[in-house]
């Protein structure tokens, strides 16, 4: 039940009626449907926090859904004024702009928020939104630290909100085909999954620190991170290449490719017993995430091995030739994916995010009578809407997403520390290494904390 719904339905409608004279706000659908949920035929009222990059994609997507009568859009928020102004142009009249996302969380008429800020904000904002009774779509990776993931899981459960994390590969049509193909034993018992990816970039044109641009609130961009002077190599999109805020390819695409692996291997809720990483560091510049990387995760009971390898482009597996006429079209992201190795054969997929391409043999395979079918997502946002309206678990729920993010975080921790880590899944802690244990969390600046 939502904590924020203090009024009963009748009281709220009376109050809302009075308030409507002076306020343009909408009645939250959850009031019409009952506490915590939106009625099956009601529109979900949305707000967007972070509207550049993927946030811009989500806003455009939601505008289309609004125009089709599926949702309302009440507010947009960004700490970059230029991005906020652009978002208003996209969203149109009737949408309120905000600089500080916490004003959005105070609005009782908003049912759900889409969070597409830099990764170091995901944990804090998702927890705050859940504590304010909002359903949440939050971009991947779910979190930057183990502690953030734990707090996100707790907040979602405690406040009974539906959370979908943006590892949308699980919802792709060919992900369904791959999952079904693998789970029916077509390559036998799978004992190893090897994820591949091209390298993280290097900052070959470093620049000195400077004053932030006038349109950017640098202090709030940093948010929970410790303060440091502005440098244009921090943002916007390039935050990805800093271990602290983005985590490199492993936390960016790892949150997609390893998400598919955990889903298809039936491994959500489990974790590795050991994690061992090596990598090559950038030779100059601000960015510090590993350029090449090699991580091995060992799972027990059942026993299997997951690897993550960032490799030179010429070492990547060759992508399958496909015509543009086929469903799914040509493989436009051949630079990442995974090879599944079973005792009867192998299977490969490319992409793993909004573009996911399964090898031909899985696409052509037909489910025999008595074969095992798997959940087919109606679409990543549709799956979230279903969760909001019915309470059904989303396909990339926060427990699963935190588990996948933990893989990325642990891989980076092992790389940073230069040593093998032992992970205790039951206790959600790193065993026998006090420094690594401290690094499972990161103190956060006041007042931007979990």
């Amino acid at each position, binding site marked *: 039940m939502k904590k924020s719904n203090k009024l009963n339905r009748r009281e709220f409608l009376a109050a809302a009626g009075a308030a409507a004279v002076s306020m343009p706000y909408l009645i939250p659908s959850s009031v019409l449907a009952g506490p915590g949920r939106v009625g099956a035929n009601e529109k979900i009222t949305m707000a967007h926090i972070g509207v550049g990059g993927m946030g811009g994609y989500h806003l455009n997507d939601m505008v289309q859904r609004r125009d089709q009568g599926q949702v309302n859009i009440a507010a947009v928020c960004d700490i970059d*004024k230029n991005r*906020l*102004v652009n978002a*208003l*142009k996209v969203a*149109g*009249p*009737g*949408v*309120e*702009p*905000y*600089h*500080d*996302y*916490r*004003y959005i*969380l*105070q609005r009782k008429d908003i049912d759900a928020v889409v969070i597409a800020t830099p990764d170091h904000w995901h944990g*804090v904002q998702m927890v*705050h939104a859940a*504590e*304010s009774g909002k359903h949440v779509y939050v971009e991947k990776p779910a979190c930057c630290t183990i502690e953030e993931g734990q707090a996100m899981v707790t907040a979602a459960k405690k406040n009974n909100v539906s959370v979908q994390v943006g590892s949308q590969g699980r919802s792709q049509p060919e992900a369904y085909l791959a999952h079904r193909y693998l789970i029916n034993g077509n390559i036998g018992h799978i004992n190893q999954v090897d994820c591949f990816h091209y390298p993280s970039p290097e900052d070959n044109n*470093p620049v*000195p620190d400077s004053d932030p641009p006038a349109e950017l*609130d640098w202090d*709030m961009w940093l948010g929970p991170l*410790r*303060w*440091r002077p502005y440098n244009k190599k921090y943002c916007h999109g390039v935050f990805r290449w800093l271990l602290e805020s983005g985590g490199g390819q492993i936390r960016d695409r790892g949150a997609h490719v390893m998400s598919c692996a955990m889903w298809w291997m039936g491994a959500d809720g489990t974790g590795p017993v050991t994690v061992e990483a090596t990598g090559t*560091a*950038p*030779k*100059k*510049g*601000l960015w*510090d995430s590993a350029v090449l990387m090699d991580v091995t995760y060992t799972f027990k009971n059942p026993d299997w091995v997951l690897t993550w390898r960032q490799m030179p482009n010429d070492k990547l597996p060759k992508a399958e030739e496909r015509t543009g006429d086929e469903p799914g079209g040509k493989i436009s992201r051949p630079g990442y994916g995974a090879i599944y190795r079973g005792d009867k054969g192998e299977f490969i997929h490319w992409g793993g995010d909004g573009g996911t391409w399964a090898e031909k043999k899985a696409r052509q395979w037909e489910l025999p009578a008595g074969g095992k079918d798997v959940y087919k997502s109606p679409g990543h946002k549709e799956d979230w809407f279903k969760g909001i309206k019915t309470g059904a678990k989303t396909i990339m729920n926060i427990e699963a997403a935190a588990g996948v993010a933990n893989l990325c975080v642990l891989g980076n921790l092992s790389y*940073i*520390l*230069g*040593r093998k880590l032992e992970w205790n899944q039951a206790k959600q802690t790193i065993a*026998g*290494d*006090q*420094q690594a*244990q*401290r*690094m499972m*969390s*990161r*103190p*956060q*600046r*006041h*007042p*931007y*904390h979990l």
Partner: protein
Amino acid sequence: MSTNSFKKVSLVAGAAGVMAQTASTALGQGVDELLAGIKDSSDKVRTEAWQSAGEVGAPAVKPLAKVMTDDDLEVARAAKRALWQIVRYTGRPKANKERRAVETELTELLGKDQPVAVRREVLWMLSEIGARNSIKPIARLMRNEDLREDARMALERIPTKRAVTTLKAGFEAAPEDFKPNIAQSLRKRGEEVAGYPCKKLVPTKQTDVKPL
């Protein structure tokens, strides 16, 4: 300079208990070679140098801190990364003696003679490996307006009762505008704090962008 040459120096240094004079010389050479690598004009050499710094350890801490403010940004950055490498290497399990030696060197970099940027970095290093001996020097910086927030966060991360006791004392002595910050750390460490309610959900920043 190659990774191997750093390791060779370190191996020589490992014989220090037997031949103190030799070891002292070797350690000095190790630091000198490391600094030479850090200051090299080649990106490749600098990178190899900072990646090999871990085994050089405590003797390199203060010399590296000096280079962290070098005019050449890439040299300064390599020195900072070398120092972090030492912190990550000496924080490994069963290396308490090395860790304590590095901790001691780091705490001596928290004085007023060091630039704020160096002290801020050192606070975060101590948040990972600091213990009993770090608490007092860190606590002193909770009275420094430039560094008090980093000092507060460093103490929050050190998992000892003494760190909590020190945060409590810091809370009592803190000016009103900083008490909420320390209250945040104390609550994180499971302490109850009267007054100074959590402000995390209180919005503060309005926009001047108008709706269409």
